[in-house]
């Protein structure tokens, strides 16, 4: 174990501990969750155990007690500790490749602002393409509009099938989109690829897509992996992206909010000229240093990565064990629900991580995004079930298909009862002849 200057150790990952966390300890760690709610939407807002919240509070108090001392003596080393741990977790080769930011939304603004400058300054030509998936997160789409389209980039969307049956379906659409982007002698300057799409939720074969990008002469690849750390594998060397971001507050037990942005040193060994859009006196000192000070704020969520690593190491197999059990759990529960409702999963098990899309009975009459949201609200208010619902419009010629999918999640605090509660709620709705049309706006 390494001792750092104030005595707290940085635990090694993967070696099993002698005393593993017990089920009742897990309960206690999440006792602040509303017990009346079947919480199967870990993907939206994540979750944070009590021991890490306590560590965060200590950090907040340290600042309030003596802010000047905190700023001069404690803040920077603490951020450095967090970055160092993240570097190890994601197998980045250089510490300066890791910056800590608030969330993937911020990371997207950083990368896309950089692309906008490239267009403005002529490094990218007007009309050159930037690719993104049709299921890209809403904030990323808006960031593309605000930064890329506005600076003269041509935004190409990759349509994706859903339900999806294999990686090949995704790869095929991606190749077609690349061709579209390269038409008329243009270049594809940047591809923005989700590692795990949000809605509908599917694990994208990013490694293969990035290889194709390299073959096809795409300049840069940015992976929006908001869900990934604690959910899928996040090996920067394996994946091979230029930019990669993931939120630690979703699946890595950190409090709101903290994300990392990985920016690979380019082949010449220098850093991309990324900047945080909120400019402080640290401007020009590299993104990691810029992001570590964007004016006076509460940085405490960025400082508890050591405690998060300690927490996951109380589980059998550490974070790998947690990922595996979450995946097995969500597949098992998803299949249970699909069977109970006579529907199906939105993708095969190998294309999901700790979330899976489960078809909702067609009789519920989910016919629009608005219906999906209203049903979600109804499930929360009337049944105490928290789960996001996705509306999947019928395609040309499709009749009587499933049009609504629930994105269920599985995290260490979940119990089988959570999913039974959801199963029973939907069964009751079906039994009562309920349709979304009944719900008021």
């Amino acid at each position, binding site marked *: 174990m390494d001792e750092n200057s104030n005595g707290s150790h940085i635990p090694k990952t993967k070696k099993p501990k002698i005393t593993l966390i017990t089920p009742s300890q897990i309960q206690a760690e999440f006792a602040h969750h509303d017990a009346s709610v079947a919480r199967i939407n870990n993907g939206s807002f994540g979750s*944070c155990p009590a021991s890490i919240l306590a560590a965060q509070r200590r950090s907040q108090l340290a600042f309030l*007690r*003596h802010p000047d001392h905190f700023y001069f003596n404690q803040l920077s080393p603490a951020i450095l500790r967090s970055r160092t741990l993240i570097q190890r977790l994601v197998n980045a080769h250089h510490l300066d490749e890791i910056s800590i930011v608030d969330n993937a939304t911020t990371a997207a603004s950083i990368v896309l602002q950089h692309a906008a400058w490239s267009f403005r300054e002529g490094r990218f030509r007007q009309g050159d393409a930037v690719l993104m998936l049709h299921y890209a997160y809403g*904030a990323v789409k808006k*960031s593309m509009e605000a930064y890329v389209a506005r600076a003269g980039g041509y935004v190409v969307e990759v349509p994706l099938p859903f339900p999806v049956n294999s990686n090949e379906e995704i790869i095929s659409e991606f190749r077609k989109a690349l061709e579209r982007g390269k038409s008329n002698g243009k270049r594809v300057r940047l591809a923005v690829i989700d590692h795990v799409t949000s809605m509908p939720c599917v694990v994208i074969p990013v490694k293969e897509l990035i290889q194709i990008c390299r073959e096809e002469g795409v300049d840069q690849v940015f992976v929006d992996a908001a869900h990934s750390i604690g959910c899928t594998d996040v090996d920067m060397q394996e994946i091979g992206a230029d930019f990669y971001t993931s939120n630690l507050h979703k699946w890595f037990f950190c409090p709101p*909010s903290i994300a990392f942005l990985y920016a690979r040193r380019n082949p010449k060994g220098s850093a991309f000229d990324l900047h945080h859009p909120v*400019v*402080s006196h640290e401007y020009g000192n590299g993104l990691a240093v810029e992001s570590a000070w964007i004016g*006076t*704020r509460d940085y405490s969520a960025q400082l508890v990565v050591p405690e998060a690593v300690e927490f996951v190491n109380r589980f059998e197999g550490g974070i790998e064990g947690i990922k595996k059990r979450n995946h097995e759990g969500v597949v098992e529960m998803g299949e249970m629900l699909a069977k109970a409702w006579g529907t199906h999963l939105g993708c095969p098990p190998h294309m999901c991580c700790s979330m899976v899309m489960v078809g909702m009975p067609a009789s519920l009459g989910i016919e629009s995004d608005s219906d999906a949201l209203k049903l979600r609200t109804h499930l929360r208010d009337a049944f105490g079930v928290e789960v996001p619902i996705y509306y999947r419009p019928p395609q040309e010629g499709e009749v009587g298909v499933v049009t609504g999918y629930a994105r269920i999640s599985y995290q260490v605090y979940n119990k089988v009862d959570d999913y039974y509660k959801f199963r029973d709620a939907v069964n009751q709705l079906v039994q009562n002849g309920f349709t979304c049309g009944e719900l008021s706006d």
Partner: protein
Amino acid sequence: MENEIDTDAHRNGAVESPDSNHHTAKKPKLATLPISEPSILDEFSHHQRGVARINNGSFGSCPRSVLAAQTAWQLRFLQQPDDFFFNVLRPAILRSRTAIKDIINADHVDRVSLVDNATTAAAIVLQQISRRSAQGHFQPNDTVIMFHCAYQAVKKSIEAYVTPIGGSVVEVQLPFPVRSNEEIVSEFKKGLEKGKLNGGKVRLAIIDHITSMPSVVLPVRELIKICREQGVEQVFVDGAHAIGSVRVDVKEIGADFYVSNLYKWFFSPPSVAFLYCKNNSNDVHHPIVSQEYGKGLPFESAWVGMRDYSPQLVVPSILEFVNRFEGGIDGIMKRNHDGVVKMGSMLKESWGTVLGSPPEMCASMIMVGLPSRLCVKSDDDALRLRSYLRVYHAIEVLVYYQALRNDDRDPRDKDGFITGYVRISHQIYNTVDDYHRLKTAINQLLDDGKVCSGLLKE
């Protein structure tokens, strides 16, 4: 300034805050006793014992009752985040924005956005300049004007957003020590002339309401009037220190953009600031783009991705707090001002030096000259002295180095030229002892014949 808020009209049927005593501000009833001294001490009992905390300007301070309100909001989120996001967050932000709107006399809550801090607001304003220039708005010789002592983050923001598009910057020297508003106005007018050389237009004037270092209250209304007369296109007032320190009436001040941090002098936790925009422009954006892009800055700022928004939600609790004081925030401001002037004068007398500005040009901070014998000869010396005071005397105070200008402005004491100043602050938790400790520590250094360069760096 109005503190009263029409609470009921702005409820919108929103969910009650977790604080059971929650109601937004009313002036205290005659029967209500103002908060007692022991209660004030208790509200700040989390401050490090033994530290003479006279640098409220840098990081502010937050009383326990407001921290408790913040914790309640945080817990609410953690308990059921989806419910919080869909049902609680937006109405609560609207309540805070509405409370601010009333305090600053803005016409409409649409003009008021909540952001993290003035640094963020500067990025918003300057990015907007950058966007306008990309549309061919900037001509060669166009300029941005600011004071030479503008906050470093603002200067860097100009470097990031204005310089690359070819805008040049005119810096206005702040006379210091300053004797009158006229001196500042005169320098500013000279700066404007420079900004308009060769047919250039001054696209943006950045004016501090209260400068940071050295700290002086600027005559913003007057300066903005001059800006309008001289055809300056936009005026951005960096009022980082202002709210809770001086009266802020944005209509009267007349700036296009006005920002102030609530966590410095208005008792909020870190961190929240308001940014007031005079015009309802559809091209002023938060640089962090979310799904809310294009809906107007207040909405964009209210959701910049998943984060802890609790500091933005406690404004009603802050108003409850300040209204426990005699005269509410006005009373607090007056007592802080009187306190800092009194303590500043006490120090000046003891050290035989000068104040950096006349009392009417300061709010709750004042610059006090350090004895010349201390030999503050560089920024490094100033930092050494600051560290020394923290480490050896548990005194937290900013130290400022003012180079000699070789004119009649250079102040003297009996031993030489005064080149160093402390920026002392007065907030409700301060006691007279805090300042006597500073007085004694400096006098001790003099007695020991020490100079700054001989002090060990932290």
